[in-house]
């Protein structure tokens, strides 16, 4: 059974990922091993809570990468190393781990929830992954160091919507990279802005990918985190409890899937 009670933890480190995304390393004071793709409710005291998927879990430390987009996130961005923060979770259902190969498709701040999966796979000596990652511009790419390391271990393709003078790689939306996909029998994980997910699914279906092999991590207003406050439903499902990761065939007929 669940409670809204949050646990106090310390910010061990903070750094800038991009001009509007910061990463926060915090002690896991809860002590429940999270599954890749799960999320926590992070609490800025006196300001409120936000649902954030974790990006990495190493030695009892959780990494959260947060874009400054609203009221609570703007206050999280003001926090410094050593500041207190509230945490509760982990909540929801994450990415499935099984024998299948994985094609990971991420947009912008969608990379951290894929990162937790990639790190878990690498820890069990699995590198049968292919990452397709897109961001608005080169300076909006997160986890640049991790991307460099991963590209030595498995196939990583990166693209940006708008190039700049430093960029020599792919330019265009992430679906432009789909011709690089070699594994039609893999499972496909998609996370990013809704418009990107919508077109990514459409493209995969046109490539005759089975809807049962497509997984989406959805986003709605998740306040409680365990299916009782009523805000985050998509049709009859609650994103916090039944998701955030859904197998596409289970939600494809819900009219409000993409708004």
């Amino acid at each position, binding site marked *: 059974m669940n409670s809204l009670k949050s646990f106090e933890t310390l910010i061990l480190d903070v750094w800038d990922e991009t001009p509007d995304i910061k990463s926060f390393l915090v002690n896991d004071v809860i002590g429940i091993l999270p599954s890749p793709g799960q999320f926590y409710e992070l609490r800025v005291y006196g300001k409120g809570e936000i649902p954030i998927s974790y990006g990495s879990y190493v030695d009892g430390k959780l990494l959260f990468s947060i874009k400054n987009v609203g009221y*609570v996130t703007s206050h999280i961005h003001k926090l410094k190393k050593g500041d207190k923060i509230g945490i509760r979770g982990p909540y929801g259902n994450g990415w499935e781990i099984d024998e299948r190969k994985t094609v990971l498709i991420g947009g912008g701040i969608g990379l951290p929830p894929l990162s937790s999966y990639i790190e878990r796979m690498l820890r069990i000596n699995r590198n049968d992954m292919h990452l397709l990652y897109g961001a608005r511009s080169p300076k909006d790419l997160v986890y640049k160091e991790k991307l460099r390391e991963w590209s030595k271990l498995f196939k990583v393709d990166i693209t940006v919507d708008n190039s700049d003078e430093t960029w020599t790689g792919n330019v265009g939306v992430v679906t432009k990279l789909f011709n690089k996909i070699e594994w039609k029998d893999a499972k496909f994980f998609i996370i990013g802005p809704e418009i990107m997910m919508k077109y990514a699914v459409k493209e995969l279906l046109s490539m005759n990918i089975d809807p049962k092999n497509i997984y989406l991590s959805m986003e709605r207003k998740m306040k409680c985190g365990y299916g009782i406050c009523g805000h985050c439903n998509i049709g009859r499902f609650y994103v916090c409890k039944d998701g955030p990761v859904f197998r596409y065939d289970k939600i494809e007929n819900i009219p409000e899937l993409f708004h």
Partner: protein
Amino acid sequence: MPDGIYFIKNEDFTDYLNSLIKKYRVYATKRVGNDVVFDYIESGSEFVDERSVLSPKNIIFPAWKNLNESENNQEIIVFGIRSCDLSGFNIMETVLKFDIEYNKRRDHIHFANFICTEPCKYGFCTTFEGVRLKEFGAQFLKYKNGYIVEIKDNIFMSNLFKEVSQDMVEFLNSYNDYFSKLMVPLNVKGIENKIKWEDEIWDELAKKCISCGACNYACPTCFCFDINENSYERIEEWDSCIMEGFTRMAGNINPRPSLSSRLRQRFMHKLSYHYLTYGIHLCSGCGRCFESCPVSIDIRDIIRRYNR
């Protein structure tokens, strides 16, 4: 005679309530001016067996509470709730039971519901569970010179109770069928799959609705709540799916920006989604939503639209 069924005479009723008041806090229906409201009573004589203006939802699920303060969970008897309101709370519990704090509070609340003897102006409870419930602490049904009492929670037991006769038991057992003849049930069979996403009704309702949220607050099954905090307190409070901010996320992204989409959500949740997940409609047929609606949006019209 069957276990847990008794009879209490009208002349013993005030003494019975006084015996409960001696031991517990009793939150009961009483008259204030022309209204019947829930309040703590100090004497059994204050009690009136009538439908209250609002359901006592606040006692089981507070409209506003400070999460930083621990709750004072004393035993409370809620006496005189109508069956439809209690049925609504039982439905609400299919969701709230997953919360620790709710359960702690719920364990200390004891409900005694009263079965209506005639249909009310707004209710359509026979469409759902009906007037005689399966889940309660104590359930009272008016019979001749007293009440037939069903007891599930021993806190309500009393030595003033008498044995029931065979005709009382038969009256009780046939009561839901009898009441369904007075209040003809609407047909909700299969409505969870018949209610339509694409339907002009949602736009029509949106032209009338003023987004006040009264339907949500009056409803004994509406459980949605918000969590907020400021420098002084952390608050859990009732929320309303009719309000624009209900689904609005950081960055002003809102999956349900139009009033018609929010009205559709309300009726989809009541008549379809909750049933598909929990096997019960999110409605007890109390009629409080359209009783309180300033523009008379009537859930019965929605039910009839899909099931004639």
